[in-house]
C-alpha cells in the first residue's frame, strides 16, 4: 500500500499528515474490498464472468477508462478541470485513423495522433495561462470548438478501414492470461504518473498548486508553467486513450469521446482524488476504473437490465465520494 503515501497532502495542505495518510489507507482498502467483493459475487453468480473472453474485454475496457480517468486526474491535482478530455481524445483518435486510412504506417500515425492531442492540450494550457480564465470555462469552450471543428472537417464520417496491424494490437494478450496489451500500457503509464507525483519536483509542484494556488504563487513556484505542462500531460493521456479506442473499436468514428467527459471524473472520484486539488491517488484511480468496468461487465452477465447500469454507477459514485468525505470528516482532516 505504498501508493497511499504518494501525495503526502499534509505537507502541503497543512497538518495531520499521519491521520490523513492512515485514513486514506482505510478508504483505499475499503475500495479494494468492495471491488474484490463484486468480483467474488460475479464469479459465483455471473456465468462466464471469469472466462478469458470476458476478462480480456473487461481489462481492455478498464484500461481505456482508466487512462481517461488519468487525463482528468492530473488536471484535478492542480485544482483545475478538463471538460475537453473527450474532445481531445476523439480528435487524436480521428486524426490517427485518418492518417492510417491515408496509408501512413500505423505507429507513425498513432504517434502523430498523440502529438495532435498534446498540441491541443498545450493550446488549452496556453489559453488558461494567457487569459487567466477559469479552466472550467476554457475547457468547456475548447471542447465545443474541437468537437465542432472535428465534425465539420470529417463531415461526421467514420474511418473504418483501419490497418490490420492496429486492430491486431488491440487483440494481443499476455501469453496464457486474459490480460490485454492495453492493460500493460495503462499500468506502465500509471507507474510513470506514480513516479512523477512521488519523486519529481514537477509532481510536487502540481500538488502544491492544487492544494493552495495562491501560496504556491507566493512561494515563487512557476505556476503558469506547471499549469501548461499539466494540461499538456492531460492531452497526452486523453489522446493515448483515443488511439487505443479506435484500435479496440476497429473504427475511428466522429462520436468518439463524446461520452467521456462525465465518466472521466468517476474513476478518480471513486479512487479518492479531490476535486479541489492537491490530493491524487493513482492507485485509487486504477481500482476505481476496474470497479466501473467490473460492474458494467458483471451486471450485463447476470442479466440485470443494462439500463440499470447507469443507476448503479451513480449510486457507487455517490457512496464512494460520500464515504471518502465521511472518513476525512471523522478524522478531522477536512479543508
Amino acid at each position, binding site marked *: 500500500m505504498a501508493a497511499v503515501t504518494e501525495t503526502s497532502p499534509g505537507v502541503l495542505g497543512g497538518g495531520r499528515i499521519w491521520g490523513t495518510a492512515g485514513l486514506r489507507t482505510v478508504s483505499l482498502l475499503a475500495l479494494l474490498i468492495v471491488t474484490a467483493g463484486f468480483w467474488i459475487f460475479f464469479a459465483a453468480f455471473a456465468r462466464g464472468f471469469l472466462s478469458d473472453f470476458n476478462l480480456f474485454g473487461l481489462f481492455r475496457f478498464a484500461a481505456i477508462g482508466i487512462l481517461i480517468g488519468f487525463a482528468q486526474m492530473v488536471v484535478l491535482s492542480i485544482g483545475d*478541470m478538463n471538460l475537453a478530455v473527450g474532445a481531445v481524445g476523439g480528435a487524436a483518435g480521428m486524426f490517427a485513423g485518418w492518417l492510417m486510412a491515408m496509408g501512413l504506417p500505423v505507429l507513425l500515425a498513432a504517434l502523430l495522433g498523440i502529438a495532435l492531442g498534446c498540441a491541443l492540450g498545450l493550446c488549452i494550457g496556453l*489559453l488558461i*495561462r*494567457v*487569459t*487567466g*480564465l*477559469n*479552466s*472550467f*470555462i*476554457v475547457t*468547456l*469552450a*475548447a*471542447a*465545443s*470548438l*474541437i*468537437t*465542432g*471543428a472535428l*465534425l*465539420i472537417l470529417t*463531415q*461526421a464520417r467514420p474511418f473504418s478501414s483501419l490497418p490490420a496491424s492496429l486492430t491486431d494490437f488491440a487483440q494481443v494478450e499476455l501469453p496464457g492470461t486474459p490480460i490485454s496489451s492495453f492493460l500493460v500500457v495503462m499500468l506502465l503509464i500509471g507507474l510513470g504518473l506514480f513516479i512523477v507525483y512521488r519523486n519529481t519536483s514537477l509532481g510536487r509542484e502540481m500538488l502544491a498548486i492544487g492544494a493552495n*494556488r495562491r501560496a504556491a*504563487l507566493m512561494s515563487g513556484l512557476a*505556476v*503558469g508553467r506547471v*499549469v501548461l505542462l499539466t494540461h499538456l500531460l492531460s492531452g497526452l493521456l486523453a489522446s493515448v486513450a483515443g488511439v487505443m479506442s479506435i484500435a479496440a473499436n476497429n473504427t475511428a468514428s466522429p462520436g468518439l469521446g463524446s461520452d467521456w467527459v*462525465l465518466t472521466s*471524473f*468517476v474513476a478518480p*472520484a471513486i479512487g479518492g482524488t479531490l*476535486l*479541489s486539488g492537491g490530493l491524487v491517488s493513482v492507485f485509487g484511480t486504477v481500482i476505481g476504473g476496474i470497479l466501473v468496468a467490473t460492474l458494467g461487465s458483471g451486471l450485463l452477465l447476470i442479466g440485470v*437490465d443494462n*439500463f*440499470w*447500469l*447507469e*443507476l*448503479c*454507477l*451513480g*449510486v457507487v*459514485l*455517490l457512496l464512494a*465520494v*460520500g464515504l471518502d*468525505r465521511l472518513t476525512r*470528516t471523522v478524522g478531522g482532516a*477536512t479543508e
Partner: protein
Amino acid sequence: MIAAVRRLISGPALGLLIVDAAGVVVLAAAAPAFLSTYNLFVTGRDFSIVLLVALAQMVVLALGQMNLSVGAIGGLVAIVESDLMVRYGVSIGVSIAAGLGVGLLAGVINGLLVHWTRINSFILTLGTSYVFAGINLGLTHATPFYHLPGPISGFGQARTGPFPHMALVTLLLTVALVFFLARIVSGRQILAVGSNRRAAELSGLPIARSVVLAHAISALLAAVAGTMLMAQLGQGQPTIGATWILPSFAGPIIGGASLSGGTAPVLGTVLAVGLVSLIDDGLVLVNANPYWVQFLIGALILVGVMIGRLRVAGVRGFLRLARDGKEVGHDAVRSEPTAAIGGRRQ
C-alpha cells in the same frame, strides 16, 4: 429606470443586445425565410426551451454551485409524464403535476445532499445525474413513449402568428425568477450565500434553506423545459436532456454569470441564449453545416468571457492578471453583474 439603464450598460447585456440586433438584421437581409411566420415560431420555441435550461443552471451558479443533472432531470420528468399518460392513462393535468413533482423532488434531493455531505456540487450532481438518467432508461428501456394525448402535442405546435404559446410559460417563469432574485428575501439570500458563504453564515442567513431552494428552483425549471420539449416532440423521448450540459452553461456564462457565485444575470442569459438561437437558425437557413453551431458556441463562450474581463480590468490589468497566473477568472467580472440585480448592499 436609471438603475435598469446602468445595468444594461455595465454588464455584457448591452454588447449582446447589439450583437443580437445585428444578427436579426443580417439574417433578415441574407435569408428572407428568416422572417417567415413559421421560422420565427420554430426559433422562438427552441429559444423558450433552451432559455429555461440556461436559467436552471444560472440559479445554481448564483449560489456558486453547479447542477450537472439539469438534463437528467428534464429527461426523467418528460418520461414520468409520458409514461403516466400513455401506459397508465392518467389525465394530462395529474401527469404533469406528478412529473413536475418528481423534478422538484430531484432538486430537493440534490440540494439536501450537497448541503449535508458538503461534497462538491459538481461531483454530487454528476452522481445524481447518473441515478436520474438510470431511472429514465430503466423505465423506458430506451424506447420512446409515442401517442401522447392530443392536447399535449397540440400545445407543442400551438401559436398565435409567429408567437409560440410555450413562450408564454417561459416568459412567466423568467419574470417570476427576476422578481424572486431581486425582491424576495429568499432570493436575495441565495445571492448573498453565493457571494460570500461565510459572511452569509455569520450574518445568520439560513444557508441550508438557500442551497435547497436554489437546487429546487433549478430542477423545477429543468422539469418545465423537459415537459415543453416532450410537447414539442409529441412523444416521450428518453434522450430528452441528454445534450443540455453545454447550452445550460453557455447561456449564463456568455451572459456574464460568475462561476464563483453571487451573480444572476437574467437579462444577459436571455440575450446570450437568443444569440445562440439566432446562430442555430441562421446556419439552417443558409444551409451551412449544422456542426458549425457547436464550434461557434465554443468561440462565443471564450470571446464573451474575455471581453467581459477586458472591460473590467482593462488591457493592462488583463495582461497583468494573466502574467501572474492568477485564476481570477470571473471574479474580476463579478462586482458588476452582482449589482445588476437591484444593487445589493449589505
